[in-house]
């Protein structure tokens, strides 16, 4: 008798647990895009001395290449690492419509940018978020300008 009651309780618990994801779910997600550039690699760069070839050899291929004023160029590397919990609540009933999603991921898009002069020698570099790094980007110009 006691065993039957236990089995019954287990079945009810499993049924409830099986139905619960329809209205509540908790998730832990991680997203990784690309590979971070090591801080030590950036610190080893020597503005005014390192050439484009030196920097490409140390950091590999950038994500983006931009034209800069006066014949210079800028190279951008970025990557993405996010991880965190998310909670989703939704109502299965038409009478109580609603859906709530809470994302607790720390969204960071860090990157680094290197600026080269017309002689393709490194002028400066900077770390930061992509938005900050691209602030003074210029549009491509006509070749004869």
């Amino acid at each position: 008798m006691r065993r039957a009651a236990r089995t019954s309780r287990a079945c009810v618990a499993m049924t409830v647990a099986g139905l619960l994801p329809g209205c509540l779910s908790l998730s832990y997600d991680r997203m990784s895009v690309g590979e971070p550039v090591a801080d030590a690699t950036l610190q080893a760069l020597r503005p005014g001395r390192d050439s484009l070839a030196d920097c490409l050899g140390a950091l590999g291929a950038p994500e983006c290449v931009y034209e800069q004023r006066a014949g210079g160029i800028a190279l951008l590397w970025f990557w993405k690492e996010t991880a965190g919990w998310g909670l989703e609540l939704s109502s299965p009933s038409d009478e109580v419509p609603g859906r709530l999603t809470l994302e607790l991921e720390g969204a960071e898009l860090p990157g680094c940018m290197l600026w080269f002069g017309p002689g393709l020698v490194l002028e400066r570099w900077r770390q930061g978020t992509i938005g900050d790094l691209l602030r003074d980007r210029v549009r491509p110009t006509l070749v004869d300008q």
Partner: protein
Amino acid sequence: MPRFALLLLCLLFTACMFGRQDTNDPLDAVTIRGLVPGTTTAREVVERLGAPSDVVQLGRRTAYRYDATTTKSTFLALIVVNFGNQDTRSDRLWLFFDERDVLTHYGASLGTHRTQYALPWENVHEDPDNEARDALRPGVQGK
């Protein structure tokens, strides 16, 4: 009780999902090593590697971009609590040409083979993992 455990086990088996998405073919590291700055022309590059995915005008210079991307996704659904992980790596090659279309510089990052199926608490950037995968890809050594 064994039946209950079996049922639970069956539920867990249905809760694992794996996904993979590839964009473009991985770049050929051996072909890339054959490029010679100061000698190889843009025409020869296109003959060997095909059409670039992007061309950027840099004043009188130009830069060609070649790329490929692999994404591996893992998802574990444990009824109410779910765990997901997505790892995306790419092969990238930027080639810089002068105004005569002769290659002056190039930079390559080859990472598609390092992409991993993993759970979110695993570190997918560990050096031993990367080195083991690098050893299996022709033309890739070290970093």
